[in-house]
């Protein structure tokens, strides 16, 4: 990509890419060049021109960060040696042996424990007096439910590409979800998502829902008797 951006410094004038070349080959004293000033000029330049692409700007960011890396290395005492990258810390034999030993001991203990029967291995879920009871849903159950919806949707409509556009706004979806889930009226997770006609809208809706859960405005639970996943308000009673 043609970057077409020139920098001016007392040690170097020319295209920014050229600076990287000469910094690498030590033709200019990179430690003397004030990168902060260069970045500032660059940001000003960016603000003044309209024909910048995200690709071009990110290439320059990469370039600056590489310059920064070279400069940092030179400023560090001990010179410019590349740090050894394969200094992977192997689990020392003795420690590893110890962990293996503990593992073996635990396996034995698990075998012994398996010989003691628990009172009620298939304990039923408890429901008080005919109420519908909800239970915390696990992350795995939620992700699985989400995947199911996305797969079903794919079967229905063949979308050529999964393109993320700005058509769907997370904020908007958050508002929509909030208005459709009222206290005392749980909404089925599947219904909330699969009512959306386009796959990317489903994804945005899911993200919006997660955001609402994070903000503690809604909760995602499953109904104990059916395992169906519901979205409820935090104040909802009968959540086990």
């Amino acid at each position: 990509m043609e970057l077409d951006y020139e920098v001016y410094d007392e040690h170097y004038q020319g295209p920014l890419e050229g600076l990287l070349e000469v910094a690498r080959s030590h033709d200019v004293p990179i430690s003397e060049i004030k990168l902060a000033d260069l970045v500032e000029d660059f940001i000003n330049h960016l603000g003044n021109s309209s024909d910048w692409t995200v690709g071009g700007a990110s290439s320059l960011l990469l370039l600056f960060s590489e310059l920064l890396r070279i400069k940092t290395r030179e400023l560090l005492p001990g010179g410019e040696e590349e740090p050894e990258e394969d200094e992977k810390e192997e689990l020392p034999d003795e420690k590893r042996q110890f962990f293996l030993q503990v593992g073996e001991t635990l396996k034995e203990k698990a075998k012994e424990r398996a010989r003691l029967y628990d009172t009620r291995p298939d304990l039923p879920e408890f429901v008080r007096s005919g109420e519908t009871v909800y239970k915390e849903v696990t992350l795995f159950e939620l992700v699985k439910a989400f995947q199911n919806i996305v797969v079903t949707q794919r079967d229905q409509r063949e979308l050529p590409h999964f393109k993320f556009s700005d058509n769907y706004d997370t904020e908007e979806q958050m508002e929509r979800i909030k208005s459709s889930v009222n206290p005392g009226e749980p909404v089925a997770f599947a219904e909330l998502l699969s009512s959306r006609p386009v796959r990317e809208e489903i994804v945005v809706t899911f993200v919006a829902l997660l955001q609402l859960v994070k903000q503690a405005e809604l909760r995602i639970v499953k109904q104990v008797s059916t395992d169906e996943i519901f979205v409820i308000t935090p104040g909802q009673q009968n959540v086990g």
Partner: protein
Amino acid sequence: MEIEGEELNLKALIEAALFVSEEPIRAAELSDILPVDGGKIRQIMLELKEEYKEQERGMQLLEISGGFKMTTREEHYSFLEKLFGRQTRARLSDSAIETLVIVAYYQPVTRAEVESLRGVNSQSVINTLLEKGFIKIKGRRDEIGRPMEYSTTKKFLDYFGLGSLNDLPDEDEVETLRSREEQNE
């Protein structure tokens, strides 16, 4: 003799709760709904445990993670096995056990720390352990990237029949190993 009567009653109540519960029950959980403090309840639980043992009852109380749980006794295993078959239990691979051991000793621990100790990518084994309920996400560490921290669960202790983390081989042994390594360097 009213106190005596009340005590008997409590013991039966606690026994009933232990019978129904799938998870180990801690004294503190019962003290919320009973008019006695946790210390007293724990004492009753210990008495119950002793009684079961002395009277050679068909059940025993196992202490797990600071609570108690009802199980059958070791000597009845072969009989019960003939009757019911074996209990189905989660299977753990060697790498899952190795990872569990590391989490148990170093908790709360991040994935990067587990990986640096094991020397291999551990994402999928961590996911499996999370899914099976042997470890849980304890929180996030206050450092760059806010990585998740993992710790072991009650289920971990129960699965291996450990009363508490203190029942793992002594951490001092690990310390001794560590310092010996340092001397060798």
